[in-house]
């Protein structure tokens, strides 16, 4: 029992990391209709700039983290302005590849500055553990879970109740019509990228903590792990990202223990995809997605 609770706790924090990474995709997709592969780059930048500000400049960790998140948000917005905006409404394919090109460019820049070795980001959580009854959970995981929940709540409210949230949805649906109502598509697009950048950066920082995988090259790959989560939850639904993340995280963790041997090598790696397909068969728009409106 304790064992299972322990695995559940692990699954929840893993799920929250997935959710954070997925949310970045979801925001951009919801507001601009672009499927943004560069998200992985934000993860890298967030982690390394925090390292730089904390370990090299000497700022306190939290200050460094907040500054990095802001910095990456800015970088993301600039990227959107310079490279993506022009092709955003072209078709589905061109923006995917432009963002792929952007993704390719980011790690080399990082490794030019910080080399290719493993680094220590110096987070305050370290390996500290909180025990609740028999179940133990690292402080870092608590931080991930808490922040994820806050972020998601904020987003839910934001999209439902604010003008800007509405503007974002409208722009995604029809940029010209939104523009005609006085909604600046540029502002909306940039803002959504900035948010995605901030989320990616936060995800990156958490991944680079000692309780994560550490800071090193290849961090951008982790963003891709969130892809099945996005679909499972529904590509335009922040809530879906979270529920999807939790489902995948928890089931994957249990699969590691209870199913791996019977289903062959590498089963837990396909678990997210199998879950995604299972959901797709029943609900092609994902758990919380809405069906595309089409009529003739």
């Amino acid at each position, binding site marked *: 029992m304790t064992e299972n609770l322990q695995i559940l706790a692990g699954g929840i924090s893993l799920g929250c990391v997935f959710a954070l990474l997925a949310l970045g995709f979801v925001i951009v997709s919801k507001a601009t209709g672009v499927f943004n592969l560069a998200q992985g780059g934000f993860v890298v930048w967030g982690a390394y700039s925090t390292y730089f500000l904390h370990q090299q400049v000497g700022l306190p960790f939290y200050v460094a983290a907040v500054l990095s998140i802001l910095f990456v948000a800015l970088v993301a917005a600039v990227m959107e302005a310079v490279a993506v905006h022009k092709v955003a409404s072209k078709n589905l394919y061109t923006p995917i590849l432009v963002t792929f090109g952007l993704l390719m460019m980011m790690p080399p820049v990082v490794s030019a500055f910080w080399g290719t070795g493993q680094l220590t980001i110096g987070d305050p959580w370290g390996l500290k553990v909180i025990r609740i009854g028999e179940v133990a959970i690292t402080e870092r995981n608590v931080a991930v879970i808490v922040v994820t929940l806050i972020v998601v709540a904020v987003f839910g409210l934001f999209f439902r109740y604010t003008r800007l949230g509405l503007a974002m949805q409208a722009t995604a649906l029809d940029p010209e019509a939104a523009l*005609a109502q006085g909604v*600046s598509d540029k502002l909306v697009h940039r803002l959504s990228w900035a948010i995605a950048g901030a989320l990616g950066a936060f995800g990156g920082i958490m991944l680079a903590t000692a309780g994560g995988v550490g800071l090193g090259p290849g961090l951008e790959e982790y963003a891709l792990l969130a892809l099945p989560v996005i679909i499972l939850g529904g590509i335009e639904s922040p809530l879906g990202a979270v529920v999807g993340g939790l489902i995948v995280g928890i089931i994957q963790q249990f699969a590691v223990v209870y199913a791996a041997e019977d289903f062959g090598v590498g089963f837990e790696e396909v678990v997210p995809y199998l879950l995604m397909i299972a959901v797709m068969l029943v609900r092609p728009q994902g758990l919380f997605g809405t069906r595309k409106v089409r009529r003739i």
Partner: protein
Amino acid sequence: MTGGETGSQSSEGLVVRDLTVRYGPAITVLRSIDVEVRPRTVVAFLGVNGAGKTTLTRAVTGMLSFHGGSVISGDIRWKGRSIVGLNPRRIVRAGISQVLEGRRIFAELTVDQNLSVGGITKRNDNALKERRDWIYDMFPRLRERQNQMAGYLSGGEQQMLAIGRALMQSPELLVLDEPSLGLAPSIVEHIRDTIAGIREAGTSVLLIEQNATMALSVADYGYILSHGTVTKEGPAKELLADPHIQSFYLGLDEDTGELDAVKHGATA
């Protein structure tokens, strides 16, 4: 220039002077156009498909650059200030709003949310609420459907929504691009009355129409656009009476004979 009957100062309202518009490097669509929309008037624009009517609306509402077009020469003044090069947001805030050709409602937002987007530049919630009620009164059909995804509305309902959305901004100049397209006669009539009502309420209207009978019957003044230039203009009544215009732009009933021939050929 304009032989209109209203003799007010031309620094009021919308004044387009010598406007030339081009798409890309080479496609010139409007050539030296002069247009004027005075306060509290309805001005109709007629012309065959591709004449450049929509392009004119884009020039006025700042949407040209979105389509890769630009003003090459000339000026557009709104209430005395040049609005060439302003972005659509500034223009909306200056009091010009538009109904795009082809409805363009937000298919995956509800009817209500569509209206909210329409009023997005306005801050006064009470005023918005009143405005919304006013629109629902004007189009009761929309009220019935207010929580439905707009994409599922019928063509005509979508057109009503598009007009309603533009009116949410309480504009001083409303630019309508083919508002009667696909509407039932009673609704066309309704919209005609609405346009007249809007004018009475102090808003001027730039009306682009294929349904010339409808347009000229509500307009004060009219322009005929052909291949990017104004080939004729005048008070709406005069245009309506002009036999050339009748034969080109007015309703089907003029051509009775031919159709009957074809149809009778069928039965013969």
